[in-house]
């Protein structure tokens, strides 16, 4: 018997134009066309979307949670990247 397991695909749905695609869940499908249709049949039954991406789950590279501190914590003390860091004289507008 040949392998009958359909690979897993991650589904991303654009809720409406102007928004980015957002991860909605996954489906099993034997080919890309089937994955798009399964994503449509499973994740947009209630008008949830206007566009779909499907990506083979095996193609996704994720960051390692063990590296999370090294990767993300250094951003914490860069407060000068945020506009609220700066003092503006009172009464100055449009800045």
């Amino acid at each position: 018997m040949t392998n009958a397991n359909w690979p897993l695909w991650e589904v991303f749905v654009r809720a409406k134009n102007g928004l980015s695609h957002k991860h909605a869940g996954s489906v099993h499908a034997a080919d890309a066309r089937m994955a798009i249709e399964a994503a449509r049949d499973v994740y947009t039954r209630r008008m949830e979307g206007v566009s779909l991406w499907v990506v083979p789950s095996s193609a996704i590279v994720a960051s390692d949670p063990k590296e999370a501190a090294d990767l993300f914590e250094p951003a914490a003390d860069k407060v000068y990247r945020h506009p609220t860091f700066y003092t503006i004289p009172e009464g100055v507008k449009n800045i």
Partner: protein
Amino acid sequence: MADDVLFDHALRLGDDALVMGQRLSEWCGHAPMLEVDLALANIALDLLGQATHFLNLAGEIEGKGRDADALAFHRDVLDFRNCLLVEQPNGDFAQTIARQFLFSNWQELLMREIAAAPEPRLAAIGAKAVKEIAYHAKFASEWVVRLGDGTAESRTRMIAGLEWMWRFVDELFDPMDGAPSRRGEWDARINRTLTEAGLELPKPRRGAMGGRAGHHSEHLGHLLTEMQFLQRAYPGATW
């Protein structure tokens, strides 16, 4: 269009969708894969919606106070106007796909004409339905390719499914629908997909006809028995 012609037309459209939807709903919970289960249910729901619209319109044209439910649940075989193709049993998945492939490709061409027809009420329903049906035709055609090209077993089953359904093709192009003009485009579509699937066009054979005149296969009576059970067992009740 005269009212009786229009009534009959709406009835044929409604009955096709109703019987096809009823057949597909039998798959719910039993499909080869969950994703396919949901897909078949979506198609069935589209068809039930179309049936409701067309049958309500038929009742309205008739003017005797019958709505879609009265027409769906209180007519016997002789008064059903659907084509023989849609009432054929599901069989295996290949047989179901063969039926859907032949039907949806035909229904899409028909519905495009209806969406552009001068009768505004029919056209409105047709315009909505045509998008749904285009998806059904695509879905079924892709599966014909997968099964035809897949394994030796799936190929054998796909051929058997088409063999079962092929005698009901001619009826779709009955001159009563003004339909022979659609045949060329339909043949081209079917050929294109079968070629991609590595399958041959089934050999011509004598077509089975009669559905549009109420002369159905044995299968429709059983389908109606099941579908109409509650309305028949409890006359006059509301649900």
